[in-house]
């Protein structure tokens, strides 16, 4: 797919505002896993006071007790029970401070998750709820205000939950600041990658101009990973002033088009036209190859200039990472990306690395929101990297075994399934960080 970003070129004023926010919210927060009574994982985090009233359309639950939740060991105790198709709080009010929500799914086959929201932000949640699994709990330190317990699919999906008073000590947590830090860091990663790509494409052009096929092949393989790492961030770029529907101005097309999706109106140029010349048959550098390399250098330079104007929302990182994994599944696994050089696994590795970087920058904030999902995604990234390790081969261009038809026939399904196990949990990140 073409990843549709909410990213936009940053206006000067916006960038300045971001700096101020970061300066004001420089604290860190902690996530404290503790074990709950029934084997579930409990997490603790603090949220600042409510900044806006809750959804005015929510009616109070008829069955919940309006009295304040009892306090045990300094922590308010609230029970949430899923039964049939109902989602029932035993108390719908509590004193400000730490509050533990214990969730039990008695028989609600259609209810699998609950979230505690503050002005549409998730301040606590539990997933993988199913009848028979026992109780799980989470603890949040809440300041006074009105919150919403959200039970997707329940008869009453939204129920108000009121916290009275002020928390004795406000936690330093600010998930949004952590995520903003992450997007800033990711922007720097993209910047560095693009700068490196410029150098690598310069080197490729020099090698092509020299006429040395062997050297040009090596430089081609060295230049490819940079684009593959950040492809989902830059794939939508068109040259300023050009028609978005016309491939003449589509930079991704001009840089990365493959034989399988050529637009006859534009013809072939870019990386893969060079790849064909270098690998098809015994490989040959012609005047046309040199023209491709020069055009590539020009287009990459334009791309880098445009990319420098980007800033990122947290969900851009998540959607971009998902987009890179789609690239792996759609093109690299099938050996369609590098049809002549068969260096697909180097691209595969770069796509995964780019996705891993995006995830790593989201991780501090995401861990506050959903530590379980964070751990799962981290573990699945490790599994994908481990699955790629046996294919590392420093003697080949790009540093990986050539992804030949024979190797694909025997190994592609296993590698693809390892990526699938990462794709699904990763696809759940965007909504978490977008609503934080």
């Amino acid at each position, binding site marked *: 797919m073409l990843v549709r970003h909410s990213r936009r070129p940053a206006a000067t004023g916006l960038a300045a505002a971001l700096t101020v926010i970061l300066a004001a919210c420089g604290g860190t927060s902690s996530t404290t896993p503790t074990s709950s009574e029934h084997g579930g994982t409990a997490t603790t985090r603090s949220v600042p006071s409510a900044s806006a009233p809750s959804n005015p359309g929510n009616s109070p639950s008829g069955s919940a007790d309006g009295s304040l939740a009892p306090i045990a060991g300094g922590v308010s105790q609230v029970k949430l029970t899923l039964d049939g198709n109902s989602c029932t709080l035993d108390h719908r009010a509590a004193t400000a401070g730490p509050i533990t929500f214990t969730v039990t799914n008695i028989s609600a086959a259609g209810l*699998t998750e609950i979230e505690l929201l503050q002005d549409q932000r998730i301040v606590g949640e539990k997933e993988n709820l*199913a009848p*028979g699994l026992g109780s799980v709990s989470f603890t949040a330190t809440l300041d006074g205000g009105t919150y919403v317990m959200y039970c*997707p699919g329940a008869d009453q999906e939204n129920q108000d939950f009121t916290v009275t008073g002020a928390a004795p000590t406000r936690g330093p947590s600010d998930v949004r600041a952590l995520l903003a830090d992450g997007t800033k860091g990711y922007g720097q990663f993209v910047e560095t990658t693009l700068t490196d790509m410029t150098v690598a494409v310069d080197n490729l052009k020099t090698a092509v101009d020299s006429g040395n096929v062997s050297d040009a092949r090596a430089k081609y393989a060295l230049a490819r990973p940079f684009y593959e790492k950040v492809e989902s961030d830059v794939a939508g770029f068109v040259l300023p002033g050009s028609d978005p529907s016309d491939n003449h101005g589509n930079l991704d097309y001009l840089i990365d088009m493959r034989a399988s999706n050529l637009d006859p109106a534009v013809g072939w140029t870019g990386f893969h036209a060079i790849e064909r010349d270098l690998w098809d048959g015994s490989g040959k550098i012609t005047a046309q190859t040199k023209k491709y390399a020069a055009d590539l250098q020009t287009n990459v330079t334009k791309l880098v200039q445009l990319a420098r104007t980007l800033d990122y929302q947290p969900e851009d990182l998540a959607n971009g990472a998902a987009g890179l994994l789609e690239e792996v599944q759609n093109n690299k696994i099938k050996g369609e990306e590098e049809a002549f050089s068969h260096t697909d696994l180097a691209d595969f590795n770069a796509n995964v690395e780019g996705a891993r970087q995006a995830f790593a920058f989201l991780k501090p904030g995401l861990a506050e929101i959903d530590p379980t999902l964070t751990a799962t995604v981290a573990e699945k990234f490790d599994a994908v990297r481990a699955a790629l390790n046996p294919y590392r081969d420093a003697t080949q261009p790009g540093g990986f075994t050539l992804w030949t038809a024979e190797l694909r026939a025997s190994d592609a399904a296993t590698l693809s*399934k390892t990526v699938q*196990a990462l794709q*699904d949990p990763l696809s759940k990140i965007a*909504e978490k960080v977008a609503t934080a």
Partner: protein
Amino acid sequence: MSQSPDAASSASDREAAGGAGHSVSRRRFLIGSAGAAAAGAVVGAGATRLADPGAPAESGTSSGASTPVGVSGGTGSSSPDLVDLATRVPFYDQPHPPGIITAPQRHAAYMSFDMLPGTTARDLQVLLARWTAAIAQLTAGKPIGQVQPTRADAVGLDTGEALGLEPASLTITVGLGPSLFDKRFGLAGKRPILLRPLPAMPSGGALQAAVSDGDLSIQACADDPQVTYHAVRNLARMVRDTAQTRWTVMGFGRASAGAGQQTPRNLLGFKDGTRNIVTDADRAKFVWIDDGSWMSGGSYQVVRKIEMHIEVWDADRVSDQENVFGRTKSEGAPLGGEKEFETPDFTRKTADGAPVIDPTAHIALAAHENNNGVKILRRSYNYTDGIGQYGQLDAGLLFIAYLNDPAHFVTLQSLLGARDLLNEYITHIGSGLFAVPPTPATGHYIGEALFS
């Protein structure tokens, strides 16, 4: 929210059972060949897919206000194959798992899974609990979660292609493979007593690992193929970080009869399952596990992917085909007899002294009379995988059998694999044995006893 599960399952139950006030216009019917002439003449609001009258699992949908198939006009009698896509098969609180003695639906999707490396017993527990909850939703004709997320940037919990479709008698039968009880999850002590990998048996060719075995399996059957595929797709998707798919087969036509159903035909054009198990007594004796263990009430499932040599078979004269099966082609009568349900006479000789039914004919070797009384419940489906690498139609039978002792299958297949005249035309290419745990009570999940 439009995609919320129905508020009251009890109301939905009544609805599916054709209760008063149910809108006729929502009903859709599928008519079998015998009833095709009457297809335009269906009347009445309560037509219900005929369920196996002997199957308790069906009682919830065949009771109440539901009425038998109604036809009018003089074009024919009611069809045993009339199905009502609104029919729901109850899931929780049943004496036995669904999809075993449930009258075979028209379509099946079978999929096997392997737990991912590094997963834990807790991961397996969560998988089984979430699958169970999702199965309860799916068999009730509901999505497993939001199709249209309320929140921006969210992926849907359900993929949506079954929205607007009826439950179509969907049943989902979960199997546990022998490999699940190895060292990985610490479950060796809970291994169903007779769950061991099937031994090597003569089968006409080498079984392929890529279409055999698995830690877990799902048999989804319904009268609408999109309903079956939606079910396995979503069950696979929801656990993708825990288990990976291993192999799958889409079955497009039932090839075994349940009680009260016409005997369907396999792709060799012969009736299959004429002598299938249909009585409660035989079910108790041959199908249900009753050993006092946590598996009591469940069963063992044998699955074999059997490739048919279609072109070779099609070029064989019908008289020889009949000799191979031991039955006539059109009627399905045992050779020497006239009607399908006559008991085969394996002792009968022709005038020149040769047996009328060849002793190595398929029905002779498979007959309980010739196997110490052993019977197995068959619940097979026809499948096709397109065109094979040698340019031949790639199709066959997804043989599925339920039995309380896998040795019964081993006995039969050892005999059939070595001597069956049919072996010239078939090759077993896939195989699996799974334990099907008893069905959970409301508030519980499949295989919960493994973790207690």
